[in-house]
């Protein structure tokens, strides 16, 4: 079992002929992801890694019936691409693009929700169900199928933790990168609920960072709705206030959003919080023992 994506997923790639889009389409196809079509306006008739390209999402939907879309288009055009995917009837959209203005994402989020769809990201690495579907930019080979559900606001830091888990013999049901922006489609609580309901997931690893209150919301959710053990790691204990640490959403503002608050909130509801990424596997093993 897994959450959100598996071998039956039919993936559409928006921005498939771009540099990022074509490279990662090849990588995803190579991993075994069921990529059914791609979209680039004016690209109809082409193919990338054997995947047929269409001019519009509507045409791609009519010809190939995708049920998940991944977006690799530049920030200025990404909101439009999300709207096109939603209007095309695609229920789950993954947006990799970094640098989308917050003002554009506020209406996008509302539109996605009002259409009953789900958005992952933006500014995220995507998600992977090891051995079944890689929908994103993560290195596939570090993942192994197993009982751990992983959710994170980060990219390479997620790979770091996944790598440590895999080396320790702890494979993953699904690893989900929710993204580092202030407005994201899917929050920790949404993914926690999915892992809680997934019978194959035995423990949950949650990787947070400074900024916002998503981790605090997650802590409240864990207390009320999560019976499975949760292990956390929060990046940015040494980050100064008022400075954006790379991710648009990673900023301590007005004294809130510090790592210390997030660690305290998670520990208060019984989650084990690692002080370094390499400590995560042992805490998971202890939680499962």
């Amino acid at each position, binding site marked *: 079992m897994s959450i959100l994506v598996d071998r039956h997923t039919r993936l559409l790639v928006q921005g498939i002929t771009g540099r990022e889009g074509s490279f990662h389409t090849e990588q995803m196809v190579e991993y075994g992801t069921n990529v059914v079509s791609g979209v680039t306006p004016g690209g109809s008739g082409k193919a990338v890694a054997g995947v047929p390209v269409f001019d519009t999402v509507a045409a791609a939907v009519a010809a190939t019936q995708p049920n998940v879309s991944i977006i690799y288009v530049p920030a200025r055009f990404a909101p439009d691409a999300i709207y096109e995917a939603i209007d095309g009837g695609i229920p789950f959209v993954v947006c990799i693009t970094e640098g989308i203005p917050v003002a554009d994402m506020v209406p996008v989020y509302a539109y996605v929700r009002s259409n009953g769809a789900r958005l992952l990201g933006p500014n995220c690495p995507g998600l992977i169900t090891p051995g079944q579907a890689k929908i994103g930019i993560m290195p596939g080979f570090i993942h192994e199928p197993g009982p751990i559900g992983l959710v*994170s606001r980060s990219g390479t830091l997620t790979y770091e933790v996944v790598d440590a888990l895999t080396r320790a013999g702890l494979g993953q049901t699904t690893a989900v990168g929710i993204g580092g922006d202030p407005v994201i489609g899917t929050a920790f609580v949404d993914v926690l609920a999915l892992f809680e309901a997934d019978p194959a997931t035995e423990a949950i690893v949650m990787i947070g960072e400074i900024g916002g209150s998503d981790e605090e919301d997650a802590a409240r959710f864990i207390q009320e709705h999560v019976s499975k053990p949760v292990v956390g790691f929060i990046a940015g*204990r*040494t980050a100064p206030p008022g400075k954006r640490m790379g991710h648009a959403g990673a900023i301590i503002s007005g004294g809130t959003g510090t790592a210390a608050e997030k660690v305290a909130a998670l520990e208060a509801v019984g989650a084990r919080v690692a002080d370094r990424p390499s400590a995560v596997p042992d805490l998971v093993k202890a939680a499962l023992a």
Partner: protein
Amino acid sequence: MNVHEYQAAELLARHGIPVNTGGVATTPEEAVAVAAEHAGAGAVAVKAQVHTGGRGKAGGIKLARTPDEVRAAAAAILGLDIRGHLVQRVLVVPAVDIDREFYLGVVLDRPRRRNVLMASAEGGVDIEEVARERPEQIIRALADPLLGLHPYQAREVGFALGLPAARVGGFASIALKLYAAYVAEDATLAEINPLILTGDGDWLALDSKMSFDDNALFRHPDTEALRDMAEENATEIEARAHGISFVKLDGDIGCIVNGAGLAMATMDAVKLHGGEPANFLDVGGGASADQVATAFELVTADPNVRAILINIFGGITRGDVVAEGITDALGTVSVTVPIVVRLSGTNAEEGRLLLAAAGLIAVDTMDEAAAQVVRGAR
């Protein structure tokens, strides 16, 4: 991106908000002239223009009644160091007869993914303190993500503040204009604190603050032009031009990392091993030779740096390619402090051999790298 109070006030004035109009001075004599121009013989406030709060407590705001007092106030404030910000300009505005003070602001409510108008009858004080200690004193109105803030919502906030009915219309008008300015300018914060009622019953914005979404600056060249280079770290500006995220910190261990989350975790690891990071630096996912070379230049520009930790999780990028990038970069940039490289991912072992051959300390794990670099800095 942040701007000065006077710049925020000019922007809000353009959106129709009544602001206390004055002028900016860079010398005491200029301050005297500005005071005469905007206040005649009346009293003025002389206010430090720096990108930080706490100006009042730091002696950065003074009331002056005569030209001599204006000269003395400006002389005392110009050159002042407020929380590490050197005061190079003062704003001189007419002193105002204040009847009541309010707080009014628009920000993003992150958990709800909507913009929110916030107001409080406790104006002119630290609003974060009010939010912490007396949260019931802050009144909020969530803006519809598609339709924006409705006039009735602004009126509701006005009534909730306890304003007399005759003043609610004026308040609502300013609240709606502030919301419009926030949206039109792609702001991340638009704030008037205090917004005052004068003795004559007029509304006036006495102090304005705005911050802007860096990701939206491409469509606001006029905002970008307001950037005060003197308020920003030169290395951070240089980094941005190369697509590198860099934040200067106070320690002595330079960090070069691919990915923002991993970069934060790397700083934390340095601290955990008894060191202090000199910077946050995210070279981006691929860690190409050019980017790494630029990163070396940025990090070594800080004279405090006594050792450098490079932490690259290779992933799809091959470790040997990253290693070649690092050694190539060292061919173009001279680095005299010890360098510890942590390299992981595909072909990481080959990469580490290449690095070791080039005289660098190459290790397998983040913990080991952090321990080594802290030792190297001693």
